[in-house]
């Protein structure tokens, strides 16, 4: 193995990455997965962790580009150079670029992930049988809406399992239309277009308008390549047109006729002799996972190896069941050491204070139902420690387990008396141990109470949570001024003083809090233990991150 001059490497172990754009060759979820698996190749053997960011600047910025893509190291069309990456450091250092004139697959021909249909997103099975005929590509046969589909088992007639193939009639990617499908015909610069086009772009990507008039609405998206799309030639991305005429003869499939290099090609119109529109047919393509694992090796500080079977060997070769070569492992261990347990997270410096907005909300107080018995409640909205007492919230009311009167349960109390601005259902709440401020989260908004005065509602995006987070389901104080916020399978670390999420988040909950339910509806910290609640149960994790107890909220915590 080789490292770069001066043993360039990252000075931290929690590396971040961001995918800047996608290739039309595979659906985004397959590309996401290929990159995640490629990073896992390295995190499996080192103390490094890789966290995906969805905006801002990450250590490793990953993108696709063609020919001259802006870094002074142009790609070279199909084949030849596949990708490149820069050694660790600031700016373009650490970034990885992939040549989008290549045919990106999983290494064994078109990876066609279906959508809709009844196959739950399974990949197409090629060849498949339909009405006695074998198909090795998606087809519109049997449909009047011209949507390409495929079977996800070898025999559609027997299994009836199918899904729709990538098509601009179903969805687009990137652009500014949130994946909406193309609208045909559409007007662009006064011209009418019946299909995707590269017009107006210099990077050769095919795009379409997602309304009938781009000039007016400026709404667009990029067209996914169909599995019958040609590669290169003078019609990149256009589907083959079968049958087509070539030198007066009719062809129903790809051919190498007319070429000296034996490569299969097809026409993208019905008559090559008159239109000469063509491209290369789908081949096995290059495994995005394997090439990415190699490039990320560069982005971590490894140079090329001269061991032919090593991942860091410069030339590409497809491997079915990939595993890192000892040479690669020794190289990356030289830079970062071997895998150890989960790293203690070092505390970044607190951010300068950020201004907060005052807002007022009129509320009405709600009478409490004294007969409501906390022991009959299966699932509390949230549980949290305030002033040293455990509070249980449910539908505008709360109960308090007083630490002063040896655990006697008090309540119910009306929330609107003490925190009038907070809505009926609280997803989570926590008291900041430094300022004694109380944060309430409901849906995508939050309120901050200091005694009787409050700020909010404000959007959780103000804290740096991404717009995809629908609600914050848990909060766990971590040392002075840091709080972990949980949602779904992820968690973020909030710098309370700076009111901002720390860099390098989100992280996967189960990677750090192993053994707790990933669908916990509530998470809180109490007396040095972390509690993950799901329905009537809780999982208690001690400070050594061991789950040392699973029990009932009512019997064990409420002493019912």
């Amino acid at each position, binding site marked *: 193995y080789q490292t770069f001059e001066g043993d360039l490497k990252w000075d931290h172990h929690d590396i971040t990455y961001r995918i800047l754009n996608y290739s039309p060759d595979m659906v985004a979820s397959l590309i996401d997965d290929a990159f995640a698996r490629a990073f896992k190749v390295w995190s499996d053997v080192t103390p490094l962790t890789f966290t995906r960011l969805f905006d801002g600047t990450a250590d490793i910025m990953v993108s696709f580009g063609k020919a001259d893509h802006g870094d002074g190291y142009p790609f070279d069309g199909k084949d030849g150079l596949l990708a490149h990456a820069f050694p660790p450091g600031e700016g373009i250092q650490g970034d990885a670029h992939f040549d989008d004139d290549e045919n990106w697959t999983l290494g064994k021909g078109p990876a066609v992930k279906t959508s809709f249909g009844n196959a739950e997103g399974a990949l197409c099975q090629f060849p498949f049988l339909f009405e006695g005929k074998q198909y090795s590509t998606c087809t519109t046969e049997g449909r009047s809406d011209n949507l390409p589909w495929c079977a996800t088992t070898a025999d559609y007639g027997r299994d009836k399992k199918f899904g729709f193939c990538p098509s601009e009639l179903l969805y687009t990617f990137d652009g500014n239309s949130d994946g909406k499908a193309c609208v045909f015909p559409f007007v662009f610069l006064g011209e009418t277009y019946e299909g995707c086009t590269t017009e107006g772009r210099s990077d050769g990507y095919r795009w379409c308008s997602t309304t009938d008039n781009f000039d007016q609405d400026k709404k667009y998206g990029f067209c996914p390549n169909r599995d019958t799309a040609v590669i290169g030639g*003078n019609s990149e991305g256009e589907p083959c047109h079968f049958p087509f005429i070539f030198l007066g003869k009719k062809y129903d499939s790809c051919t190498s*006729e007319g070429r000296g290099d034996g490569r299969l090609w097809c026409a993208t119109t019905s008559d090559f002799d008159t239109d000469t529109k063509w491209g290369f047919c789908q081949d096995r393509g290059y495994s995005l996972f394997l090439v990415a694992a190699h490039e990320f090796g560069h982005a971590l500080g490894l140079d090329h190896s001269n061991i032919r079977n090593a991942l860091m060997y410069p030339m590409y070769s497809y491997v079915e069941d990939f595993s890192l070569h000892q040479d690669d492992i020794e190289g990356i261990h030289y830079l970062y050491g071997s895998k150890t347990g989960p790293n203690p997270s070092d505390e970044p410096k607190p951010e300068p204070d950020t201004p907060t907005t005052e807002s007022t909300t009129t509320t009405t107080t709600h009478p409490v139902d004294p007969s409501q018995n906390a022991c009959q409640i299966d699932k509390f909205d949230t549980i949290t420690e305030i002033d040293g007492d455990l509070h249980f919230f449910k539908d505008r009311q709360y109960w308090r387990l007083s630490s002063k009167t040896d655990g006697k349960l008090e309540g119910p109390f009306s929330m609107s008396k003490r925190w009038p601005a907070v809505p009926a259902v609280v997803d989570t709440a926590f008291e900041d141990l430094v300022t004694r401020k109380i944060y309430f989260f409901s849906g995508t908004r939050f309120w901050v109470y200091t005694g009787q005065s409050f700020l909010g509602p404000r959007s959780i995006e103000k804290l740096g949570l991404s717009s995809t987070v629908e609600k914050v389901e848990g909060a766990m104080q971590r040392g002075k001024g840091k709080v972990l916020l949980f949602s779904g399978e992820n968690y973020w670390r909030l710098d309370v003083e700076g009111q901002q999420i720390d860099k390098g988040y989100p992280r996967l909950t189960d990677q750090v809090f192993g053994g707790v339910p990933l669908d916990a509806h509530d998470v809180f910290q109490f007396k040095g233990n972390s509690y993950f609640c799901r329905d009537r149960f809780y999982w208690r994790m001690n400070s050594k991150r061991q789950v040392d107890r699973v029990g009932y909220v009512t019997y064990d915590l409420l002493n019912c």
Partner: protein
Amino acid sequence: WCVPLKKSVSVTFPGDVLKNMTDTELAESYLKKFGYMNVQHRSGFQSMVSTSKALMTMQRQMGLEETGTLDKSTVAAMKAPRCGVPDVRS
């Protein structure tokens, strides 16, 4: 019983990025692109490495027989898909 040999016609395909370089041109461009030749050192010193020596270095890096000549396996290796990061760093 073999199928009668078809007379194959060679056609010009518009937009065909045929990299119709000679093997020597291919070798020259490859050795420069991946740092084996015309290495610009940090000091600005330009070391002119002979093609044969550059070929030997490349053949060693690729685990090929080190002949210093543009043999078949070396040409094939130069045409194979690969990473764009140079093999020899200046």
